[in-house]
């Protein structure tokens, strides 16, 4: 069991086995389905910890692959690549999976689709772990699409709800736009390099045998996949709608793991991205823009889960900014801490929704006394994401700010600072609206059961402490683990004061506007100013897309439909009509009388004879002898 490659193989295979067994044996037995799924993910988690421990002792790159299928001159392999990055990711994925599955025991209790839910979670865990461990582009892409499929299945889990079915479809279609670029990028890169293997492609791109412009183009195509999956502008529109899925799904897939797959992909292919400075600048710029853009929208959302969805988009933008600005370790550090506190935020939101039966922040208020555990853990998560010293979000966010500052991209740095303020503002708004003041309608009668609160307490502890692994307090932090050449992070007191000052300002502004001192009636009413309407309508991006699709796309389809109906179908109909009419004519010659037939045969033979004779005489020109 100590062979790391074997361990790495078993990590994704356990949930796969659970998925298959659930469908074979436990489709109608909720307890058995949950036991299978939880058992498998627990084993996976233990093995992942083993894998990470091995990497922590001696960071190496381990690879094992078997031939899968030959594709022309290329050989597609199926294999695992274990390095510090993937070891870290498998622990994040299995840990969040485990906690969310425990939480789901309470949240999904009594749902008629309970076994189905757990089987999908297992399938998702398998796909995500395969994505993390894949050693080549094809396997990565297959796993990439598999997590997309699981996302679709789980967003549309309550498929009886039309909004859920629509949201699932939207998520699938929108990410498809990015995946198209991703696939083209993968294929061009692989065909140019003659291999699908990450490390060999990276070596090939790094060798400088491809013109710089082409490298940039291909890398940006690959990045399209990350834009779609990680909800970066302009393909972010699917993620808020994805909140129609059950809340544990939002916590697992749409905050901590799958949407981070785009960030992970950029990190996994970092040597390839590094080959193009322009591409990295695009990554950083888009990340910074998305971070500020989504944070602005989050301020004006009234659905508690949508606030969190835009917050996720914004934080993913931070990670992209870090990677683009050269802060490889910082980006992944934030991915790690974000997985902790964002999962906690979603689980807290789920706990609230479970108790109240509504997502509407304007109808909540005063939950603090009724749900003490949820309130305290949420407070921790809010402070962590706001980046208050010394919680986990502070350390990773400051690492990103540091990377953005030293990259020299002033606009991106300013955007990231603004986002610090906005993040604190919208997160504390959520907290004040939901947990403080007086109730504005929705009443909670009880705290959630222990299966739901215990994961939240664990995650709250994680949100407090996890930042220490990347802080300057430890000798060799997460950045050094992931990137041995990285310098030891240092504590910049000026930056600390600046970011914490901005975050505190955000909290104070939100306290002034949404605090418990406000009358419930004024909080329950939505403001009507123009800026508010723009933000509440998400900068009208969805409407713009609809306009473009209705105007341009549907217009084009109408033209094509006309062409198809009249020209293509017309040609087919002419051919068909000609044979029908010709047949009707020839039909008259067949009267059923033998002698008539004999006459036709004789005439035909004679005609052929005459033609042959004429041809022999050379009547038809060159053919004659």
């Amino acid at each position, binding site marked *: 069991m100590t062979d790391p490659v074997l361990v790495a193989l078993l990590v994704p295979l356990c949930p796969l086995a659970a998925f298959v067994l659930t469908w074979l044996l436990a489709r109608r037995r909720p307890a058995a389905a949950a036991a299978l799924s939880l058992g498998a993910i627990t084993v996976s988690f233990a093995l992942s910890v083993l894998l990470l421990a091995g990497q922590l002792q001696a960071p190496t790159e381990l690879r094992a692959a078997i031939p899968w299928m030959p594709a022309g001159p290329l050989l597609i392999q199926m294999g695992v690549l274990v390095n510090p990055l993937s070891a870290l990711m498998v622990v994040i994925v299995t840990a969040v999976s485990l906690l969310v599955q425990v939480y789901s025991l309470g949240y999904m209790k009594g749902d008629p689709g309970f076994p189905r839910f757990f089987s999908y979670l297992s399938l998702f865990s398998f796909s995500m772990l395969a994505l993390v461990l894949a050693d080549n582009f094809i396997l990565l892409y297959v796993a990439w699409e598999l997590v997309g499929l699981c996302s679709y299945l789980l967003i549309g889990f309550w498929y009886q709800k039309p909004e859920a079915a629509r949201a699932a479809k939207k998520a699938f279609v929108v990410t498809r736009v990015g995946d198209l670029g991703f696939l083209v990028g993968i294929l061009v890169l692989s065909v140019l390099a003659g291999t699908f293997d990450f490390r060999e492609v990276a070596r090939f791109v790094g060798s400088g045998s491809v013109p710089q412009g082409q490298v940039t183009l291909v890398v940006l195509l690959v990045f399209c996949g990350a834009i779609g999956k990680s909800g970066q502008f302009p393909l972010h529109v699917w993620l808020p709608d994805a909140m129609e899925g059950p809340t544990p799904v939002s916590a697992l897939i749409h905050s901590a793991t799958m949407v981070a797959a785009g960030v992970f992909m950029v990190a996994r292919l970092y040597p390839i991205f590094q080959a193009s400075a322009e591409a990295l600048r695009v990554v950083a710029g888009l990340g910074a823009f998305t971070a500020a853009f989504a944070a602005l929208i989050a301020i004006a959302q009234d659905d508690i889960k949508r606030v969190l969805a835009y917050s996720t988009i914004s934080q993913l933008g931070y990670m992209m900014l870090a990677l683009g600005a050269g802060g490889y370790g910082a980006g992944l550090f934030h991915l790690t801490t974000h997985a902790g506190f964002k999962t906690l935020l979603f689980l807290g939101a789920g706990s609230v929704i479970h108790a109240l039966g509504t997502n509407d922040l304007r109808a909540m208020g005063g939950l603090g006394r009724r749900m003490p555990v949820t309130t305290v853990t949420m407070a921790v998560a809010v402070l962590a994401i706001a980046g208050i010293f010394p919680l986990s979000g502070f350390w990773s966010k400051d690492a990103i700010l540091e990377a953005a500052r030293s990259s020299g991209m002033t606009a991106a740095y300013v955007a990231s600072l603004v986002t610090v303020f906005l993040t604190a503002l919208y997160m504390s708004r959520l907290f004040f609206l939901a947990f403080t003041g007086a109730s504005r309608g929705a009443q909670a009668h009880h705290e959630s059961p222990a299966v739901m609160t215990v994961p939240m307490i664990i995650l709250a502890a994680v949100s407090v402490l996890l930042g220490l692994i990347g802080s300057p307090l430890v000798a060799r932090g997460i950045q050094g683990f992931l990137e041995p050449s990285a310098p030891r992070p240092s504590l910049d007191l000026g930056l600390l004061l600046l970011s914490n000052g901005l975050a505190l300002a955000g909290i104070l502004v939100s306290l002034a506007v949404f605090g418990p001192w406000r009358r419930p009636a004024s909080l329950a009413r939505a403001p009507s100013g123009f800026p508010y309407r723009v933000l509440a309508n998400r900068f009208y991006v969805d409407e713009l897309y609809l306009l473009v699709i209705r105007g341009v796309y549907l217009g084009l389809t109408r033209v094509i439909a006309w062409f198809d109906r009249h020209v293509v179908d017309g040609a087919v109909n002419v051919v068909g009509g000609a044979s029908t009419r010709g047949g009707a004519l020839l039909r008259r010659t067949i009267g*059923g009388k*033998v002698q008539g*037939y004999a006459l036709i045969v*004789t005439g035909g033979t004679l005609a052929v004879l005459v033609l042959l004779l004429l041809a022999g005489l050379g009547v038809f020109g060159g053919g004659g002898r």
Partner: protein
Amino acid sequence: MTGAPPSPGSISVAPITLSHYLLLAALLFCIGLYGAISRKNAIGILMALELVFNAVNITLVAAGRFRPAPDAVGQLFALFVIAAAAAESVLGLAIILAIYRRRVVVNADEMDLMKH
């Protein structure tokens, strides 16, 4: 076209060549074909078909006779054709009889069973 070898004892008459036989056969074939197409009586059609067969037989026998090294192969073929034609005539007559018993016609104009 090979000329026929001079037969012993012939003096004044021009020799009968292969062309003569083929012409005769073609004539016979055309008469037979005309009869087969134009006769109304089914038995008449059968008889006309016999003419066609015999035209073929003449061709076969003549071709066998006029080969560079004459042998009996042509005649052998002709014998087979005669045997097959006899069998075929029996079949044809049987069909005509069957139709006559069912529909009381031997008139080919009224036999349009193949249309249905």
